[in-house]
């Protein structure tokens, strides 16, 4: 347990973005192994590894891969979800920025195993620099013969990779909305099983489509290199391997940390240098959509899917946010609610109307207009959204509010009764200064 740099093994090697350096450090070994195997054996390898989707839901990757039909004449599409928009999460950014070849390799392996025709990397619009790195990596891979026609001498293994930049919508990170957006439609979710076939049967352009997160593809490349059984030795019984956490908030060294699954939560905080500016108050372990964990519960939580769920939260995408005791939870929730109100696509009633209502109530409470009964009203609105919305965004907007009320009910009541913050001024983490403007359009 603890820090275990697997995907990040060569993160700090100088010029690892270059294909020659990458190959010297064992790059594309996984792909070379894969193309010597049967296609089904590659999928079997992923199954053996027990890898689960790293985008947030944790769906077993092997099962997803084997859902792509093997004997049909439709084109197959491999899509990488790099629309990393979950507040608090920035792991895909670093992976693409530092290890673009790992992602490219993982996608080519998927393209081989699933007879893919083309791959699309749907990158969040703000990620200009990571996109440049991936662009460069793709170009180098073409020149090295890892992409294009008859890859690595395998007859009939043709695979092309494209980058598609998003246009700034959180919703497009939801896989069906991502498909809509990729096809040029409005970025809104599409019908899902059982209302429509799985994307692996009918996805983009009515063809079988695989959608995985950046980290999942990177892990797939590693798994093919080290072997599924070896990978499965890491982690807990049902959560295998490693997971990258984007640690932020009141810690000494906020950064991406790759830990083995099942690492105690407190150990990660220690690794990040411990809490600063006060005592630990709460942790959001998996991005803003998941429930907040009180400090006294933190020692019980291990960082794997099951342990998180047992403790009333979720592993999510790994946006690990730490708050010290100067944090006002109500204001934090108001900011969270504002985010979901702004990002709701507007398609379905509960999410469109509910997220705004939640924000307006929290805004009223934190402006000194709270009324008795507001907390019950909030809980009731959340129960009317949760599970009733078209896609997961509605659920994700309701969970943190319910979680915060459950964990810090007294702070909401304090705001309503006293019209001021229970922790005094300076209650939210100050906005960090932007030192590295994202829109430097020069190729990195």
């Amino acid at each position, binding site marked *: 347990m603890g820090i275990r740099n697997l995907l990040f093994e060569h993160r700090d090697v100088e010029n690892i973005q270059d294909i020659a350096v990458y190959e010297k450090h064992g790059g594309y070994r996984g792909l070379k192994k894969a193309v010597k195997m049967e296609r089904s054996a590659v999928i079997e390898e992923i199954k053996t590894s027990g890898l689960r989707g790293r985008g947030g839901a944790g769906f077993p990757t092997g099962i997803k891969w084997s859902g792509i039909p093997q004997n049909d004449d439709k084109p197959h599409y491999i899509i990488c979800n790099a629309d990393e928009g979950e507040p608090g999460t920035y792991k895909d950014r670093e992976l693409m920025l530092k290890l673009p070849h790992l992602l490219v390799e993982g996608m080519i392996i998927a393209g081989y195993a699933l007879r893919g025709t083309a791959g699309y990397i749907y990158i969040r619009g703000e990620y200009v620099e990571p996109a440049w790195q991936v662009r460069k990596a793709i170009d180098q891979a073409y020149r090295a013969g890892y992409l294009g026609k008859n890859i690595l001498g395998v007859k009939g293994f043709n695979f092309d990779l494209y980058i598609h930049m998003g246009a700034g919508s959180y919703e497009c990170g939801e896989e069906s909305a991502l498909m809509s957006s990729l096809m040029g439609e409005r970025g809104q979710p599409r019908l899902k099983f059982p209302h429509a076939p799985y994307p692996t049967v009918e996805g983009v352009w009515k063809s079988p489509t695989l959608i995985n997160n950046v980290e999942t593809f990177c892990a797939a490349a590693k798994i093919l290199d080290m072997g599924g059984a070896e990978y499965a030795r890491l982690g807990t019984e049902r959560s295998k391997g490693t997971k990258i956490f984007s640690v932020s908030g009141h810690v000494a060294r906020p950064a991406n940390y790759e830990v083995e699954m099942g690492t105690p939560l407190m150990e990660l905080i220690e690794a990040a240098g411990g809490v600063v500016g006060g005592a630990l108050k709460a942790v959001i372990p998996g991005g803003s959509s998941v429930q907040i964990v009180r400090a006294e519960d933190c020692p019980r939580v291990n960082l794997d899917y099951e342990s998180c769920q047992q403790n009333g939260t979720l592993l999510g995408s790994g946006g690990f946010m730490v708050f010290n005791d100067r944090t006002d939870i109500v204001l934090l929730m108001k900011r969270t609610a504002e985010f979901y109100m702004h990002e709701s696509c507007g398609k*379905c*009633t509960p999410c469109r*109307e509910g997220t705004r209502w939640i924000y307006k109530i929290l805004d009223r409470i934190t402006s000194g207009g709270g009324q008795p009964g507001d907390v019950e009203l909030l809980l009731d609105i959340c129960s009317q959204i949760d599970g009733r919305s078209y896609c997961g965004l509605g659920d994700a907007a309701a969970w943190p509010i319910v979680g915060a009320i459950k964990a810090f009910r007294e702070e909401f009541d304090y705001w309503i009764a006293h019209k001021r913050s229970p922790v005094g001024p300076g209650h939210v983490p100050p906005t960090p200064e932007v030192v590295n403007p994202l829109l430097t359009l020069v190729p990195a």
Partner: protein
Amino acid sequence: MSQFRLTQTPPSLNPPSDRMVRVKINGIEVEVPNGENIIESAKRVGVDIPYFCYHPRLSRGEAANCRMCLVDVYMPRKNPDGTETLAKMPKPQTACTLPAAQGMVIETESEQVVRDRKGILEFLLINHPLDCPICDRGGECPLQNNTIFYGPPTSRYIEEKRHFPKAYPLSEYVVFDRERCIHCARCTRFADDISGDAQLAFLKRGADMEVGTFAQTAYRSKFSGNVIELCPVGALLSRTYRFKARPWDLHTQKSICSRCSNGCNVKFDYRLEQLLRVNARVNEEVNEEWTCDRGKFGHDYVSAPDRLKTPLLKRDGEFVPISWTEALDRIVEQLRQAGSNVGGIGGQRCTNEDNFVFQKLFREVLGSNHIDSRLGRYQGPVNRPLFERFGYHGMGNRIADLENMKTLFVFGSELVDEQPIIFLRVRKAWRFKGASVVNAVTRVEEETTKVADFAEVNLIYRPGTEMALLLALAHVILHEKLLPKNASTSALAQRVGDWTPARAAAETGVAAEDIVRAAHLLVNGPMAILVGRAITEHPEFEALVEVLGDLVVATGNQGNLNIPGTECNTQGAMDMGVLPDVGPGYRPIDPPGMNTHRMLEAAASGQLPVLWIVGAKLVENYHDADLARRALENCPFVIVNELRLTETARMADLVLPAASVAEKDGTYTSCERRVQRIHKAFDISPDIKPDWLIFTEVAAMLGGTPYFSPRDILRDIAATVPMYAGISFRSLGDAGIRWEYPAGDA
């Protein structure tokens, strides 16, 4: 644009499977087609599931956003020991998209579902202005109705509601109230799926989302009126009907649209003698439930203030009102003097009954065969171009059949203007049934709904080169041997000559490869040809129809050549024998009388003492307007039956006020030969008479047998016209009857 079809899901109306499955809805077991929406299945057993966004004719890909139809679902799950248990799905599911599966159990009234519906309605109402007292939709509003039955009695929302300027004019006919919108996406889906202009779309996102057009341009759809009926709240409203009435004050009468030959089923909503709005009536065979803007907003003439209300006689160049007694005396006097030398023009906009009495008066009482309903350029023998070869006049296919074609060839037609409802079928065939469309027109208008938007090949040819284009298509089909060996191509082969695509390209201005591509599509059967005005008004109409006939015969699509009429009863007027060379039921008449053009020529040279024009705008619309004008000037006595003082009527000697579609009973026959009933809604003035009454009164005064009602006349039609045998007001019902030519009659 044709590839856009790929990303859409089919509409939910047609059950996707023949296989039946058993489901249980609120404890009622029912057998339904596999994959049918649970909303439709529930309707079968009389269980009401409320909804806003769902619509059976719109694709379901965009549905399920109102979340009103959430239900609890239990699925059978196999246990390891072989038994089955029911497992509840963790989340409630939308019934409008949930496909029925074997053993599924649905609960629509569980405590949780009732609570969910209350929650959704509370959400919908927090931003709805609730200005029901001044809303046109009040009283027929799904939001009101669902709130009464399923909603919470009060709201807990105390924040500020969303505000927008009221009454944003979206188009010439539609105003939009953004505050009332509940974002059901019905209008945007209609624009996408049905009318195809795709102008309406959602702008912005989240709670700021609103329906709009790009950069606030006008909504130009030719079917924009439908969104008013589709809107489940009062957000999209008619500019002509707005603030005119409360729905419960309106009377409704079933009728047929009088603005084109497609025969849309409509409802006339009226108060006193004011026709206030026209809404669509469902007829799956004809208009499904759509109307075009011409039909929906084009009936303002019925209650126009300038309607004629008394007969007018011209004295010294001025019209003076006279009584009907005097008018009839004048007519009888003139007709007696003229003997059989009288001409009758028009009747395409009158009912079958009017036309039948019209021709009966001329043929049996006056003894004249100079009667013609045709106003177009082709006035040759009626039976020649199509009937003698294929056994029908006009359309070979039913409108509903068009959607089952694999290829549709639209030739020389601005289909959306000439045949709006056929246009919708063609689009449906392309959009949901996978048909390819070949479109040959002289020009493509920008910025409007049109076939060219989704046609696989657009052949934009120079006017007058239709024949070259057709022969080149045939040339490709023959020389590339696209047809099976046993196809009867001999007739076509004789005509083709050396019209190679290259030569035709130089002549027509169409790229040679487009001609080749189109030809490859045409052999992909079943294929139907839709011919428009550019062909029917062509000087070489007969020759073109012959080549088109050869084409359908060679490709094995006999009977799929369609030449639809243009006015609401073009077909009926012909059936009733308002033609110079055939009588009722297309029985040849010997000797034939003069056709419209010859009558006008005779009148212009002063050889026709009496000309009776029935609802025909000759001066305005006839292709030789000068001739029409001279004819009306030089004819000693011109009678015109009209609704308003048109330019033609102004040149008449006697103008008779005729009843409009809303003021009389009768039948129309649509372009696909569907006989449909119109019902009288109201009387505007006691001095306005339906045309048949005018004719029968004149006939009676001249010694003929009078008729007393349209029912009476239809009985006589059924006895006289073989195709109408068995048709009566009762047998027509709501959907009408499409008649077929009696076998062996051709």
